[in-house]
């Protein structure tokens, strides 16, 4: 009985969607959106996909490496990348845009933050945090056999940049950078340290599930400015650059240059897409901390924000 009902509704849906598709959509070819390996990006992309489907487009989600995807976008194999962080992908994105085969679809509205970070229980053990000047007094506590007597700072993969070696030198910090190879390795260490309530000082970015699941704080470095990175005279240490914190930056959308010609309506919707850090943080928390399946998180957003996304596809 249930099955027959399903078949009927399926048939109905088919005729409807076929009719709708022919009425609105410029091309029936699937638009390919790329998926990466962090929850926030999966949510952003799935929401965009759901919205495009509401507008009648066919969508395909493709697993692709964060930076390697640009070669696919340039050749038109892939069409849309929904989260390109100014902090990690800016160079690759600008290089890709310079080829003329990739275009920016503007900002997502979310702001990326990345900085040195410690779990909240370290605040008691190391009074004076979050001020960076307190770090040297606690270097011993953060050290391991490999780095002793210096403190150990767990950095991101080498390719992600971040100028931490330079920062340590210019601010005179008694620390050594140990680079993790992947973000999985980095957060594996955090999870283990948190279980034991052991000292750990590491690099974290947001929006991400880790700072939601594990309460903690950012180290407060002297505020970032573009000059601080380029001009030694600016900042804490008059003789060296990089003597300040890390920049924050927008998260961009970008994609294949031909998208606008082939699916003008979709291009408009993608450009219109915006989301705030708070909205994203809440959804990421639901997925990674509460264990709600991502489809349900996306469905809930779609139902609650119908008025918002309807304007994107008008």
């Amino acid at each position: 009985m249930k099955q027959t009902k399903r078949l009927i509704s399926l048939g109905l849906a088919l005729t409807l969607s076929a009719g709708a598709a022919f009425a609105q959509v410029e091309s029936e070819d699937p638009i390919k959106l790329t998926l990466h390996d962090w929850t926030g990006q999966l949510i952003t992309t799935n929401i965009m996909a759901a919205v495009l489907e509401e507008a009648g487009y066919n969508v395909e989600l493709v697993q692709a490496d964060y930076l390697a995807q640009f070669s696919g976008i340039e050749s038109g194999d892939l069409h849309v990348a929904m989260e390109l962080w100014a902090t990690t992908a800016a160079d690759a994105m600008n290089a890709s845009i310079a080829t003329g085969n990739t275009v920016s679809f503007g900002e997502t509205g979310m702001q990326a933050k990345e900085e040195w970070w410690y779990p909240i229980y370290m605040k008691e053990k190391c009074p004076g945090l979050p001020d960076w000047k307190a770090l040297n007094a606690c270097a011993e506590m953060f050290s391991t056999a490999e780095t002793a007597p210096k403190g150990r700072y767990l950095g991101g993969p080498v390719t992600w940049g971040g100028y931490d070696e330079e920062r340590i030198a210019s601010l005179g910090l008694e620390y050594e950078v140990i680079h993790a190879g992947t973000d999985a390795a980095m957060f594996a260490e955090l999870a283990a340290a948190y279980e034991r309530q052991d000292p750990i000082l590491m690099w974290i970015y947001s929006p991400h599930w880790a700072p939601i699941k594990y309460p903690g704080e950012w180290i407060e470095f002297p505020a970032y400015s573009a000059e601080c990175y380029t001009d030694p005279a600016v900042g804490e240490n008059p003789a060296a650059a990089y003597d300040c914190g890390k920049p924050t930056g927008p998260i961009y959308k970008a994609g294949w240059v031909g998208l606008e010609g082939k699916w003008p309506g979709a291009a408009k919707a993608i450009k219109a897409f915006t989301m705030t850090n708070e909205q994203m943080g809440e959804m990421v928390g639901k997925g990674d901390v509460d264990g709600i399946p991502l489809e349900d998180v996306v469905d809930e957003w779609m139902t609650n924000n119908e008025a918002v996304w309807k304007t994107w596809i008008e």
Partner: protein
Amino acid sequence: MSRTRALLWPVLFGVSLVLAFVSQHLPPWLLTPPQAMMIDLAGTTSAAMKWLVEDATFGMFTVKEATRAIATLIEVPYEAARILLVDGITEGKGRRASTIIPPISWIAVTAAMVALGIYARNLKLGLLIGALFLYLAVFGQWESAMVTLASILIAVPIGVVGGLALGILAFLSPTFSRVLSPILDLMQTVPTFAYLVPILFLFGFGPVAALIATVIYAMPPMVRITTLALRQVPPELQEFGRMVGCTPGQQMRKVLLPTALPDLMVGVNQVIMLSLNMVIIASMIGAGGLGFDVLNALRSLKIGDGIEAGLAITALALALDQLSQALAARSHVGAPVQGSWIKRHPKTVAVLVLIVVTGLAGLVLPWVQTYPREAMLSTRSFWSDLVTYVNVNYFDQIEAFKDAILINLLLPVKRFLLALPWPWVLALLTLAAWQVGRGRLAGLCLALGLFIVVTGLWEQAVTTVYLCGISVVIAALIGVPLGIWAAASNTAGKVIGAFIDMLQTLPSFVYLIPVIMLFRVGDFAAMIAVVLYALAPAVRYTAHGLRSVQSELIEAGIVCGCTRWQVLTRVRLPMALPDILLGVNQTIMLALSMLVITALVGTRDLGQEVYAALATADVGRGVMAGLAVAAIAIIADRLIAGATARAKARLGLSGE
């Protein structure tokens, strides 16, 4: 004369220690090769790749068009396999596609595998394979496992047919064989990550590119085994073929290939196992399936999920391995059954009927089509609780153990190697090569060493040698005794065999994350991962070598009054030395192939260089670092092969 020879290496080692000690006072160009020596091979390669992708043509069409056409060609059977196993026939495109005819149900697929098992050997094998597939369904891995199976079903035939064709060509033409041999060396030693980027450029993003990378990785053993098997066909049989008037084509099809069939099936088995090894890496460029589940689970630290998906890969590998081995050993027994096609193929008919019946029944009863969610089991929380328990309760002991090894072994060796001047290292390498294989080998090793110098990868290469070297020594120290034990008792042999089989098929990424949780990011965690992965050949070859020592020799030892211990140390181990060396050689190769995985932990070696190049889509940089890894592998391989040949000659095992 022999005394000076015996003293040569200890003296050289002493000189090395002194050099390392005073290295701070040496001119810097001795430690780091000077910029002037570097040749921008990476830039040239990148430029060549760009030309190949954008401008190169075959006249009528471009290279890229040709490779894309090949991709489309491969996509057709892949899509068909997916329709059968995963998607069914659907209406509409993209994500909204809805199913019209469902894929083959889990019951029918499992039944088909059981039938294949019975056909290949007996009911026992059928039931084993059935149980493994049932595991996939019960633990909720079915859909991903079928995606993986679909790509294996396409990659393996391409690898087998391609390998067979190349192998036959190499057998027929010695010139082709000479050209092919170094290419095969490269295919086996260049880390996969190094050629992923060029493949992405040429074949586009998605499952097809992943399939092609899989084939490149899995094909070389098939080529080698084919050539070897054809060469081993007894000359009398070939004569016979010629006498009865076979054309060259008939000779190949009716005489040579059938005779070589059992060996060829060993090659097929290798292709299957290597294809499954690639599952994780392939999923990084869009293959999906179980590899993607493992990566995804571990990236969000769901250790239990990761282990379950990893074990599903092991189950799939085990099932396909057993099946292909049974097919290889299958003897044609019994008279052919007479009668109609249906009568002659009862199992095929039963499976076909089951496919249709379960397909129809699935429309009414969903559990027939898809294994019900409510009946699924999971061990997820057990695994993550286990890691947490060890982490919370035993971390201090683990940390103390780790620090002891780190401070007393890893760090001193690393500092020592990095402090050696590169011309000295090259000189030692050349000398060793000359001792083992005279002028030719010395020339080859010197050339490969210089290649590493001019690409500017010296420091990373030394770090690689340090990490792999220590791991191989430890793997051998653990593996050889395990192998001796496995050879001594049948029960131990079986248990140890099963254990190392699992270590080899379980994706290393699965145990990498718990290892990091317990040992932190750093060289030690990387070393543990390499040792675990590279252990297997040391165990296997040792056991094999000890078992195949001629019984007359052992009896002679016993007659002379040797104790059991003396038989082992004076007779069996020396006689098994060539096999053990071969095992060590394979251990080195596996250790080097683990580099890309240890790069994920955060080492600073050639693996990291390759991985970083993948992340930045820098073709030239990746290819150069990959070739540097291959250079190290080839040097190690040739030196050990030379040493093995000399050991064999000394023991009178070869014709010399």
